[in-house]
């Protein structure tokens, strides 16, 4: 599975949403499932999927689907 598919899968599984929800740049707190608790579950799933460990600032700044892609670049994970 390529990085983009892995990334999408984490979002879809963590928040139980369909792929079309990701097209509009999903943001923190715009769906009920993406609250503080959902956020941390998603972070844990991303760490597992890409075998990385986020720094504190990145966990907090991970505020949208789009921003997340930029943050992952720091960890040498490119989502094209």
């Amino acid at each position, binding site marked *: 599975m390529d990085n983009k598919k892995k990334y999408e899968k984490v979002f879809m599984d963590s928040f139980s949403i369909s792929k079309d929800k990701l097209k509009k740049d999903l943001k*923190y707190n715009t*769906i*009920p*499932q993406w*609250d*503080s*608790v959902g956020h941390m579950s998603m*972070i844990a799933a991303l760490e597992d999927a890409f075998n990385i460990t986020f720094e504190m600032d990145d966990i*907090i700044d991970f505020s949208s689907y789009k921003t997340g892609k930029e943050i992952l670049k720091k960890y040498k994970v490119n989502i094209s």
Partner: protein
Amino acid sequence: MVKKKFENIFKIYSKRIFIIDSRGIKISYKQFYESVLKTILILKKKGCKKNTKIIILDENSVNYLIILVACIFGGFVACPLDPSIKKERIKKIKKLYKSKLILKDLKELKLSKTSLNLDSRELNYDDTDCLLINSYGKNGEPTGILFKSSSILGSADSFSKLAKYNNKTVILHCLPMFYMGGILDTFFSPLISGSKIIVAEKFTVLNAKNFWALPIQHKCNTLFLTPSIIALMTTIFRNSNKTILNHVSTYKSIFATGSILYPEVRKKFFKIFKKRIFSCYGSTEIGGPLCIQKNRASFKKNFCVGSHSKEVKIKEKAGYGRGFNYIFVKTPYFMKGYLTSKGLIRPIDKKGYFNTEDLGYYYKKTLFIKDTNRAIIKKGGELISLNLIEKTALQLKSIKNVFAIGKTDFYAGQEIFLFVSLKKRINKERALKKINLILKNNLRPVEVPKKILFLDKINLVSERKKNKDQLIKLI
């Protein structure tokens, strides 16, 4: 008499700093008491009388705490609600409570512009109703958990002794003020013991980065957190710097309140912060917290929530086998009753015991809580009615049957899953969209299930835990 004793606290500690807010503004016990008197005047001007129910629908603030005390001395009933509750449900709650006043923006009270001319002889010293906490009945309809002032103040006094609060205690308040954790554990109990309270913003991932700034600045030595906040911290602060670690090492006590503290969360926190977290146990109906872990020996026992004060009695009744007995509690701080559309209901047995429907065991005066059979679970420390979720989904005619469960989750404590069986020839994809929409439009964000699972048939028995044990295997 209880209120007189309570009022004396403000006189004894008059000059002492009572509250420091997130902007650093210091409020003494005397200033706080004067604000309480002003608030009573303002509320009386707004038409409040004895037993008037005042709905509070705002975020955490010092004014929130002032109103809670003003209701005690004014003879009014504070009805705190989660500000994220949807309008339709607020209407239902307002109708049930027969409330004529909703306070949505507490800044509008304009306390600083009100002159103080209330004679303290006008204060209400009777043991009146003072607090109504929102909950849900078996049909998913709103109910209220009603308390008299003697229960709230008595419970606060008892818990402050259990938690060993005193006038040297500096406690951080970061829990929502609309439920017991934010009302009793971290407000009335420290107030009664002359402690200092640092009022912080409600904890979220967005403000987590600066979480330790206030406690470090004000040298907090006591902390109350929900297991969810603790779990979030174990990830966010897993590489904590020396300043934070040194500060945490100075804590007299760090308590987990609001829901079950799972062993893995406790262990992870200890690994990172080298500090033990002690569990508390209570429920809203029994007047908040009544058990607390006090020693290291109890720390080693999983699911141990500690011991209780002498005035509280606990008994168990066989439930689901070894370690899963029903826990019954008898306490003088018990609620006045559930306020329902059919009147006030006081569910205690002939000997005065209340079935908490929590499951665990009681051994050598120590309580262990492992699960619950209640249709109300705790997610992130907040009460969630599974019946309400089921009832909301059942509004769709295409649904034959539903069942909601809470499943253990590291971060949430309990995560919600909704099982649905549809009537014949209904397209699942379309049904899923409709269910998601109706849940989102009617429930608070925290109440929306993590996942909806379809089953051809759901066979249910009367015991929730048996249904849960059967369905949880399918997740």
